């Protein structure tokens, strides 16, 4: 086993407004080792982005509350850090790539200036102006953009190129952890593959650990060592890619996700729709949160919150298996 880079323990996040309380992330735990990739899968509203923002402590501070939980990064609980120390982590140790490259770049700054900003903010090596510019050229070339385009503004780039710029910006300081929040969803299908391949290549080369947030099982199969499947703010199934794609036992939601479970060799499918809707996060059902949609639902499921059923590296949040045990 290699070293733990990140460990999230019992994280619980709500969004509170005068009118309602949204229970976005409910008691999730996971960990990530150096240069490993974790996939966070789930539908929109499952709490993936909230989890990611919590890791950077970028949750909107007016509404979001972290009720409990520890986020240990490199041995330090970042929930306890000063804002100043947190800023040193953001962009340098942990970077994030956001979903929509069209809006993620500042339209009135040249792309070069935006990349240089990241470098200047974390200028531990005391690079001079020239060294910063040199590094900007380097990272642009690294993502396949000619360095001479650094003086162009975002509107002069296509969507795929913009996302490359965003990736270059995120990797400029060689972070230890890269959080990619649906990095390819907003792109054309043909561009998606290119960008993804490039990200994988860079991750391997730079030895960056990565959290890949997506709802695309194909991406997960291609990139991830571990997979966490989220539903209604919980990780309902967690395991290695093998556990998830080839394991025997699964959470009923996962089964629904895959439609039928494909293995790694067969091309993984996109999410197939499951009957019913995600529960209203302001009013989650009692007991198992998947119970209203679950084909195996029992009385116990409606009453009691299930506990994890664990076999080796594989965890499933469901009564189905623990019941079998007790029988």
């Amino acid at each position: 086993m290699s070293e733990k880079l990140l460990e999230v323990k019992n994280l619980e996040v709500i969004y509170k407004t005068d009118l309602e309380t949204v229970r976005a992330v409910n008691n999730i735990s996971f960990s990530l080792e150096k240069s490993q990739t974790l996939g966070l899968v789930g539908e929109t509203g499952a709490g993936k982005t909230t989890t990611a923002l919590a890791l950077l402590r970028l949750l909107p501070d007016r509404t979001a509350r972290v009720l409990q939980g520890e986020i240990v990064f490199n041995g330090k609980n970042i929930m306890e850090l000063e804002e100043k120390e947190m800023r040193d982590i953001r962009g340098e140790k942990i970077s994030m790539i956001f979903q929509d490259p069209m809006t993620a770049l500042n339209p009135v700054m040249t792309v070069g200036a935006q990349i240089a900003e990241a470098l200047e903010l974390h200028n531990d090596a005391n690079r001079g102006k020239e060294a910063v510019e040199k590094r900007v050229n380097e990272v642009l070339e690294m993502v396949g953009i000619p360095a001479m385009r650094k003086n162009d503004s975002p509107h002069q780039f296509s969507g795929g190129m913009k996302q490359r710029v965003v990736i270059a910006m995120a990797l400029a300081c060689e972070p230890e952890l890269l959080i990619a929040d649906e990095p390819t969803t907003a792109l054309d299908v043909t561009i998606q593959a290119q960008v993804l391949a490039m990200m994988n290549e860079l991750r391997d080369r730079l030895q960056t650990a990565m959290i890949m947030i997506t709802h695309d099982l194909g991406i997960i199969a291609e990139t991830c060592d571990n997979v966490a499947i989220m539903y209604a703010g919980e990780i309902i199934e967690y395991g290695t890619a093998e556990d998830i794609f080839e394991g025997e036992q699964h959470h009923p939601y996962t089964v629904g996700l895959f439609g039928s479970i494909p293995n790694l060799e067969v091309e993984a499918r996109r999410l197939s729709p499951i009957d019913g809707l995600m529960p209203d996060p302001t009013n989650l059902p009692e007991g198992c949160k998947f119970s209203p949609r679950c084909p195996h639902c029992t009385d116990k499921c409606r009453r009691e919150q299930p506990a994890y059923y664990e076999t080796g590296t594989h965890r499933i949040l469901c009564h189905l298996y623990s019941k079998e045990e007790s029988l």
Partner: protein
Amino acid sequence: MYKYVIKRILLLIPVLLGVVFIVFFIMNLTPGDPGRLILGESAKQEDVDRLNDRLGFNKPYFVRFFNYIKDIVTKFDFGLSYATQKPVVDQILIKFPYTLKMAIASVFLSTIFGVTLGVTAAVKQYTAIDSSITVLAMVFTVMPAYWTGMLMILLFSIKLGWLPASGASSLKHYILPVLTIAITAMGSMMRLTRSVMLEAIRQDYVRTARAKGAPERRVVYGHALKNALLPLITSVGSMFGGMMGGAVLSETVFNIPGIGSYIVSSIRSKDIPAVMTCTLFFATLFSLIMLCVDLLYAFVDPRIKAKYVNS
């Protein structure tokens, strides 16, 4: 880019012609003739008639309009003031610096305070700070300038005796009039800044900047405000233009010999060339300011620059 500028400057010509035409027309409707105005009530009618004739007043409207334009274009001659019989342009050049100084000072003041307070309110949305700033902005906006001016004179000149209430002989004399104009403008600047900033700080690129590790100040002023600048520049531009007009009020209240009070006294004495020239002067100035605003856009926003270059 310079092609665009030239195009814009050429476009000014029809605009200004239109302005002259309208003002000329309105002035034409007012009763009275220049001969009588220049020579006074007691002058003999035949002298008045002769003068009217010499001034071309008896020619048809369009001929007079045409001559007026011709004099301006060929000789840069805007006519003689009826009251002083001196070229109006000279008068304006003497008076304009007063108005300009006041306008610049108040634009500066209201922009600095308006923008900072507006940004603060937006960043601290829904807090007591935000509410106080919003209320203050509202109060500032609804107070009419002549009323604010009067109150300030009452307080600072009459009651406390700190500042002079009228004239323009020293720097001190400018404080009250500048404050008076600035306060109203500051109110609307605060409200505008707050609303454009509220929108800007919710944008994705602001989150990107935070994720980069940028400190909050830099996020707000470097990223969000830079994007909110476009509407702000427009507003500062038209505020500047508006202040020239606002000078009419404050210069009268505070008795400052600028263009504002000149225009008022010219209207009173029916000094048509003076009124015409002042109006034309303001119109040109305003158009030029707005042209500058448009050009500034290109500096702030590369997307607009690209449009200008391509057009």
